[in-house]
């Protein structure tokens, strides 16, 4: 059995007669950013949703911190591709929504966290704005801030930057990496974008076409180090890694991602 903070123990999933995820045995380290890379619709999102407790494995199980996942929990927060900030709440109240159902922390602590995350994501000036008045990038920052404010230890991100323009996307990637290190979070990041995967990941798990099975397991941190300034995208090491993965995808999964 694979060891790690998040463990997939012979996890498999089918929807009716359709196999979506093949039996997977995988362990992910704490405080690392792991990218699930694979062709669209291959089942990588389903695998991640099962960590969030939003889908149930058909067989096998998932453990987080040694505890079996049985349903959604605020310690494992989701960030979706679509702008999932609530339109009827201001930026501030959207972030507060993450703490709304917590009775274990008081109002003072909630206010303190709010300040912290508004500051961290550069949202302080927009605290009173409604989501339709701010940009797509800002909305995704709100969604991430809300999840962190909830006290999530594990962030499950489903192509969160997929709908953003290239520049905003780049900035958010840099921010995410910095915040992940600073706040010591464990992140599973689903994408089909190879550049994004290499830039962000400590480790890339490459999946085949549906039903998803692990094709390759690439230790990116060993080659690029933990810090990811933008310039790293122009280095030889980055290109080599990217090309290697593109080859893998062409040869192993039979499609171009």
């Amino acid at each position, binding site marked *: 059995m694979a060891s790690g903070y998040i463990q997939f123990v012979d996890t498999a999933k089918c929807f009716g007669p359709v196999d979506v995820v093949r039996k997977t045995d995988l362990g992910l380290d704490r405080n690392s950013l792991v990218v699930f890379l694979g062709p669209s619709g291959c089942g990588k999102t389903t695998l991640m949703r099962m960590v*969030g407790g939003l889908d149930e494995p058909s067989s096998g199980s998932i453990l987080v911190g040694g505890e079996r996942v049985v349903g*959604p929990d*605020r310690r494992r927060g*989701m960030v*979706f591709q679509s702008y999932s900030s*609530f339109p*009827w709440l201001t930026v501030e109240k959207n972030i507060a929504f993450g703490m709304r159902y917590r009775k274990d922390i008081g109002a003072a602590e909630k206010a303190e966290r709010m300040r912290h995350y508004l500051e961290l994501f550069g949202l302080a000036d927009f605290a009173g704005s409604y989501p339709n008045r701010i940009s797509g990038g800002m909305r995704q920052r709100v969604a991430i801030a809300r999840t962190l404010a909830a006290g999530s230890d594990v962030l499950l991100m489903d192509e969160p930057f997929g709908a953003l323009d290239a520049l905003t996307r780049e900035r958010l990637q840099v921010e995410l990496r910095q915040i992940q290190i600073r706040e010591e979070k464990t992140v599973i990041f689903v994408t089909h974008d190879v550049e994004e995967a290499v830039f962000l990941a400590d480790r890339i798990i490459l999946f085949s076409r549906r039903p998803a099975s692990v094709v390759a397991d690439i230790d990116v941190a060993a080659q690029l180090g933990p810090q990811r300034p933008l310039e790293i995208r122009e280095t030889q090491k980055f290109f080599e890694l990217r090309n290697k993965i593109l080859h893998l995808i062409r040869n192993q999964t039979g499609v171009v991602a």
Partner: protein
Amino acid sequence: MAESAVSVAAAALVVAGWELAARAGIIAPQFLPSPSRVVIALWTMLTEQNLVWHVVVSTTRVWIAFLLAAAMAIPIGIMMSSYRIVGAALEPMIDFIRYLPVPALVPLSIIWFGVGEETKIFLLWLGTFFQLVLLVADDMRRVPQEFVEVARTVGASSRQVMTDVALRWMGPTLIDNLRITLGWCWTYLIIAEIVAADSGIGYVIWTARRFVKTPEVMAGVVVIGLIGLVTDQLLRLFHRRLFRYL
């Protein structure tokens, strides 16, 4: 601002054309009396025939039936979407009844409820409830799955997902649907009030028709139109106030 000016100007143009057509004698006055004669009839009805009381009676009937329909349609519609079994049980029946024309049910309604207030309320309710319940069920189905899942992953219970997310998300469309079905409720008023009624705008119009008092018939129709217009605008205002984030 420019838009409301156009609205007023267009309405004025129609009224002016109508007045001219009537005065020129193109159409006989018992078929199309001039607007000025309609206004005079309206004045007489207000001062001598207790029109205000009839309006109050009609408005009360509409609102009782409408509120009754809404109070039932909102929870039932939500249940139909939240529990597949409730939807499966109710939806075909509701769809069937929804297509029955209200007038076709007048005789049955009289057999059941007699000719009193109950029949009128029942007919108005009938025209509103079955439409509204399906609209509510549809709205509920359209609550984005992501919103529900975000709430669940930050620790909301099913009930909290309902009150803090689903109902909040539905708010604007719900008020819109209520506004629209309230309009439908008014359209059934005449049918409900020509059934052995002795009060209400429908009764006034129906009685005037019997004596071919066309100006009074038209005045009655105009009153219903005005009430509809005012209610609609008030609800729109309410909508804007309530949902400033839109």
